[in-house]
């Protein structure tokens, strides 16, 4: 079957190659496969794979148009939903650059001499994140924040071999599930500490009561399911270090443009979700797991994932980049490796580097301020509509909970008719929330008129 994606699929070319190999038929090349296992052509071709026949590209585009059009298509400025992934503005230059074929179709840069551009981009990603976090070591990416968190917990155990990790009650439930998957085989128990029901801040006393054999205390900052930026961050850091436990932070790189950084708060490990840095929502992926640690050889040795370093050519004449500390990795260390990760999220990391470069310090701060302003404006206005908004009184960034006094899911459904997707019905995901609570989210994609449109529609549903 001749196909444009398979150059040698032409019958004459194949015949010439088979002749040269010295076989009559391609089947001869498979003669070592047990007969019971080998599938015959007819059977294979009759399987319900695709449309059971090759399609022209024109047919494929038509089908995919159907696939995409058979969804409710929301304008991104009408998506008021976050909870671990947020609609953001992505400048056109980001996608253009990240999709250039030399980057998109490259493999892991095993041959550094011919991949300096790729390596430099990844080094720049590490560096830019490093400056945002104020931490000196950043790896070249993890799958996403959740898996980065799982790896952080394993790393903590490898460092101090203690078995308990304290996590906040209002942790992102997806992160929790993943953290459990990762840690269960290694006998780490995840212990929840409480948050204050009024402020949404962590309950320091509760933490102090649970410090026995603690390997690490984890703080989500801001909490993705409440939007609260915990004022006790510094205190928790100090408590952890007093007990020789690690302080692990889970961050949003954008909020760090305004709030204290893991570096300032003396975190040992920081993980974060890089999706806000120029990546789409993509119904869940791919995203970008940020992983950073302190300038500490033991930590770096125990760190999972790939690291790019700056060095020079052997003759010292030019700067050069290469993968470093490879002895931690699976392809060399095998069962002793710090992680099994190999393919990570390099292209997401490069995308983030392009995004950060395009905006620069001022642009990123603009975005953070936009998020702050919009969410605070919306919270205030929704409150004036007669709802408890925000539910928690603590400092918040971007996301906040509103108690709508009635089933939030119903409100959400009604608004879909206006092309609005409003927030997350929290009680579907966490046990601590009521069915009347919705987690709303606001970013720079929402203009004042977008928010006012939402307010207007919310008001019109008043009688609900």
């Amino acid at each position, binding site marked *: 079957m001749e196909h444009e994606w398979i150059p040698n699929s032409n019958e004459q070319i194949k015949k010439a190659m088979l002749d040269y190999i010295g076989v009559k038929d391609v089947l001869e090349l498979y003669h070592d496969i047990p007969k019971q296992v080998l599938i015959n052509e007819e059977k294979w071709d009759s399987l319900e794979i*695709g449309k059971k026949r090759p399609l022209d590209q024109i047919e494929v585009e038509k089908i995919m148009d159907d696939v995409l059009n058979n*969804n409710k*298509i929301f304008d991104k400025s009408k998506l008021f939903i976050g909870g671990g992934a947020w609609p953001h503005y992505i400048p056109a230059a980001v996608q253009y650059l990240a999709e250039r074929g030399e980057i998109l179709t490259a493999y892991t840069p*095993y041959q550094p001499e011919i991949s300096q551009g790729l390596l430099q981009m990844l080094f720049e990603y590490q560096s830019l994140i*490093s400056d945002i976090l104020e931490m000196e070591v950043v790896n*070249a990416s993890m799958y996403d924040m959740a898996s980065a968190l799982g790896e952080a917990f394993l790393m903590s155990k490898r460092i101090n071999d203690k078995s308990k990790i304290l996590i906040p009650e209002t942790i992102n439930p997806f992160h929790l599930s993943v953290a459990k998957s990762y840690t269960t085989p290694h006998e780490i128990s995840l212990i929840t500490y409480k948050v204050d029901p009024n402020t949404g801040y962590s309950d320091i006393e509760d933490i102090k009561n649970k410090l026995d054999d603690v390997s690490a205390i984890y703080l989500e900052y801001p909490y993705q399911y409440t939007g609260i930026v915990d004022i006790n961050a510094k205190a928790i850091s100090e408590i952890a270090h007093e007990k020789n436990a690690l302080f692990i932070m889970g961050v949003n790189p954008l909020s760090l443009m305004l709030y204290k950084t893991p570096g300032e708060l003396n975190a040992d490990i920081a993980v974060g979700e890089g999706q806000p840095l120029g990546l789409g929502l993509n119904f869940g992926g791919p995203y970008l797991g940020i992983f950073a640690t302190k300038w500490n050889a033991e930590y770096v040795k125990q760190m999972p994932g790939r690291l790019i370093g700056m060095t020079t050519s052997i003759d010292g004449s030019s700067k050069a980049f290469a993968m470093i500390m490879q002895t931690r990795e699976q392809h060399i260390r095998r069962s002793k490796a710090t992680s099994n990760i190999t393919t990570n999220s390099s292209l997401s990391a490069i995308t983030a580097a392009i995004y950060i470069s*395009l905006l620069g310090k001022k642009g990123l701060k603009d975005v953070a301020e936009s998020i702050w302003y919009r969410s605070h404006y919306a919270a205030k206005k929704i409150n004036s509509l007669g709802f408890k908004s925000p539910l928690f009184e603590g400092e918040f960034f971007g996301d906040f909970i509103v108690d709508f006094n009635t089933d939030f899911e119903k409100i959400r459904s009604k608004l879909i008719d206006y092309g609005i997707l409003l927030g997350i019905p929290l009680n579907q995901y966490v046990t601590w929330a009521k069915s009347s609570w919705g987690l709303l989210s606001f970013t720079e994609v929402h203009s004042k008129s977008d928010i006012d449109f939402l307010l207007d529609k919310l008001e019109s549903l008043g009688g609900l």
Partner: protein
Amino acid sequence: WNEPLIYELGNTRKGIGFKENNEEFKQILGEISIPQNLKREKDPDLPEVSEIEVVRHFTRLSEMAYGVDSGPVPLGSCTMKYNPKLSLKISSDKRLTFIHPLQPESTIQGLLKALYELQNWLSLITGMDYCTLHPAAGAQGELSGVLMIRKYHEIKGNINLKDEIIVPDSAHGTNPASAAMGGFKTIEIPTDESGNMDYNAFLSSLNERTAGLMLTNPSTLGLFEEKILDVAKMVHEKDGLLYYDGANLNGILGKARPGDMGFDMAHLNLHKTFSTPHGGGGPGSGPLCIKDRIVKDDIMLHDLLPGPIVIYDKKDKMYKIKWPGKNSPGLMKSFFGNVQQLIWAYTYILTLGPQGLREAGEVAVINTNYFIKLMENSKGYSLPYGNNRFRKHEVVLSAEPLHEETGVTAEDISKGLLDSGFYAPTIYFPLIVKEALMIEFTESETKENIEKFANRLKEIEDIARRNPNEPKQWPLNTSVRRIDMVKANHPKTITPTYRANILRQKGILGPLR
């Protein structure tokens, strides 16, 4: 090019900003008020450059990168095939990229239907019963499988007994690493002369502690495990589970299916067999497919899947997502999966159909064996293990003869390939082959390029004999010559970030200790 760091372009300009956007809010809310002890003290030292500088910077850097779009990337076990621009266009359509992961199911029926179909297609391709599209990459698929093995034995009450996983010595490094992350010990089985897993060694390693076996088939040597049916039977007799590493599926695509060989579970690397781009290191996508079976009582193996699956609810006439329940180890990442990659693979399978997938597999195998034949008479390169056997998707040559004769190494040879416009093969892997060159052309390479590649290898051989020092100087045509890896890794000079570099220059940061 010799492109400066983005930092070196300065911090005096203005990037894309949204300042104006906030004025109207500021008038209502006043200045931003953040509690003093939560306020960041100092703005980060990020570059401030104009848009054209960024565009040029990354344009130039991209020209200093090398992908399949640039030329052949014959990295063995990486299956670097053509990444169709058709799929790029579709998977980056904003009708997809702006779907939020927690959108109500009723608003994404088109997408869920496609994902549902993809699950079915991958099941049929692997001969399995269920697939979760959840894992973020092949290695995470492996870990998912290992965690399922763990859960399987746990539910059966055997987890304290079952603590070993068998892995052949030709396996990818991820196999033992994943087993370890799942809390298992790995037992390595040597490879026999013919390239199979040594059957006697396997038998004597098999025991009551055996929780499972992880196997790549065809192996990293490109060879099909001839005794696979016996192996499967023996492992199952010990109540072990068989895990199929799908990295090399391209070698038997359309010809044999792991489900038919006795495997209980298999992950797929969508960036390998199903043409999603590798992006210089990811993101990937590693769906996990399983053959269903009873675990205990009414618990089925599919209940243990550590990821969501899309189901069709006939009553409600809609597609829904079934998230893992209490018998699952839990999730592996946030949300559904790497959906851009999934849709890319969906379009790939849709375009080729079963016939095209089979053609892809066959041509990949023809390409490998054609190359082997081209290299047959070369004295510098040998074909260790199963010397008389056909390979599947890839082949591992050993440059040991050339190395012994001239001192020229697999690494030198790689650099010589770079100089002639090729990417290099995977080298020094698998570990059981000395001076290994692991070569995989996939079905995307032309006959002409395979011939050129073979010729270049022979040319390098000639050069090595004539002047053994010359290859040590390679590469000459790349943007940088060979790299100082000692400096790169030394505690006093290691530089993982620009920040570290600056702080060290300022005397704030010492050696990495």
